[in-house]
């Protein structure tokens, strides 16, 4: 008597597939309609929205800004996240679990609440500005709310915890014995980093970087709140166009551009992964 596992799969698959296909097809189709105002849409397939997106400088600037802040947030996430991931992966004591728990806690709490904390810290009378002015580093209050720097900080709050967890699994694939071997043969710790740790983790880090970049491109909440209504990344603009301007088709077009950029980066990431697997650069 053999269980028919393929039959068990069907109901779940149908539900997941229907939800995905229906929602994606409907919104992609609607992105070719024309907005007639007040939320009404035309019925004909036209390329007006896409034409506007790729000719209007405003939209192109938004896309470019989204790419820039995502890239910066990704870079900082790697720079700050990798050492933490390395440290946790190499700790032998129960501290490793405690430190991991700290990361998990921060990723589990909704970003809106964390933004409250950032608001309070960076307010004019907040702890950051009081300290920096008290030390004489700043003579005027400085804030991250409502500027590009703030958006990068917000994106990092979204990605750093996740980044550490992903990079942690990357570091775990590097056997500790390789580092010890390099040390026994006289490598300084700098040399161990330069010749062992970095080269061996590079493939995994590249794929992680693409994942983090993708998360940043699609991040809405932190970008919207720390942009303070003045900085528009693509996701922030989508919400505004749909909810405030009730232009569903233009919103759909923006969403389609975002979706396609993210999918392209994903394909690149999958391509790199398979190539690395073939060259046996990653141990999975």
């Amino acid at each position, binding site marked *: 008597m053999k269980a*028919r596992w393929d039959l068990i799969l069907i109901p779940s698959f149908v539900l997941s597939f229907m939800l995905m296909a229906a929602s994606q097809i409907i919104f992609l189709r609607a992105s070719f309609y024309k907005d007639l105002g007040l939320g009404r849409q035309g019925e004909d397939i036209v390329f007006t929205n896409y034409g506007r997106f790729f000719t209007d400088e405003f939209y192109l600037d938004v896309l470019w800004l989204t790419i820039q802040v995502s890239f910066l947030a990704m870079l900082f996430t790697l720079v700050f996240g990798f050492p933490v991931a390395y440290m946790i992966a190499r700790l032998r004591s129960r501290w490793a679990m405690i430190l*991991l728990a700290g990361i998990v806690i921060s990723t589990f709490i909704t970003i809106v609440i964390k933004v409250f904390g950032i608001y309070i810290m960076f307010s004019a009378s907040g702890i950051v500005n009081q300290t920096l002015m008290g030390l004489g580093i700043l003579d005027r209050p400085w804030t991250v709310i409502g500027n590009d720097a703030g958006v990068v900080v917000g994106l990092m709050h979204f990605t*750093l915890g996740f980044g550490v967890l992903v990079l942690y699994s990357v570091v775990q694939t590097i056997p500790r014995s390789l580092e*010890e071997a390099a040390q026994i043969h006289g490598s*300084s710790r700098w040399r161990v980093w330069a010749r062992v740790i970095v080269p061996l983790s590079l493939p995994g880090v590249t794929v992680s970087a693409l994942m983090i970049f993708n998360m940043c491109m699609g991040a809405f*909440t932190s970008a919207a709140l720390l942009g303070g209504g003045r900085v528009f990344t693509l996701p922030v603009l989508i919400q505004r166009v*749909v909810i405030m301007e009730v232009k569903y088709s233009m919103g759909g077009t923006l*969403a389609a551009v975002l979706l396609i950029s993210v999918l392209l980066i994903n394909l690149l990431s999958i391509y790199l992964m398979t190539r690395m697997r073939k060259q046996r650069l990653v141990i999975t």
Partner: protein
Amino acid sequence: MTISTPAATSAPNGARRRPGFHFPTGKVSFYGFCSLSYIFLLSPLVVVVGASLHRGTRYTVVKFPPEDLSLYWYTQIPDAHWEALTLSFGLAFMASMLACVVGIPAALGLVRSNIPLKGLFSSIFRAPLQIPSIVTGVAFLQMYYLFGDLTGLYVNGTFAGLLLGHLFVGIPYVVGTVGAVLQRFDTRLEEAAQSLGAGRITTFRRVTLPVIMPGVYAGGLYAFMVSFGDVPISIFLSAPGFVTFPVELFYGMENDFNPSVLASSTLVILFSLGLLLLMQRIVGLENLLRSGGGS
């Protein structure tokens, strides 16, 4: 940026080390650098909890560190927050339960069947995680409008509408975590149970389910937390007066600022901590992470 490996500094036979006392500059600055990330990630939470305890007068209501300690703002949490919290909790609970109902058979089917194009099937299950949430929100809203136009039944702004959207992003977590556990599953356990006379259902209930339970808990927890903290999907699918807690906070931040939001936020932080601790007790943190939440 000075980086050292902890192993390098403590290795007694590490080369090029001068004898005598050696202040571990590299080690200290490495740990110092790592602690920056923790300060960055955790300080906003500490600040919210701290500031919620400050009573203050009208113009200095938000202060960290708190000086005028009191639980005053906890008594001022408006009804709208309690309603939003109840909705968020119910939604996250239902979404994670249903994600398990849909996700467990999916994982079993994906891992154990011999269907062709398995990779394609599993990437379709994983797809909702690749689609940015804001796109999912827009797409579901348009789908609900079209469905409403066709049938006269508009589900946007209803519990069912929100639930379907949250379920959509919750399923991949359960499929991922349960699938990861199943891949390590020793099928001889089931064969043993069946050869001892257990039926298929008994085998599943008494052998398979207990073994995959850590994966179910982990996936369910991820689905719960993703739903509980979501803004970009809920913001499109909720209606005025019927919003989830994060969306309520999101709109509240754009309008007036009342310190009672810090109090309700603190309750959410404590609740999330409690849930994580409970899960850690049940399955262990290692299981939560190893079963692949990042997938």
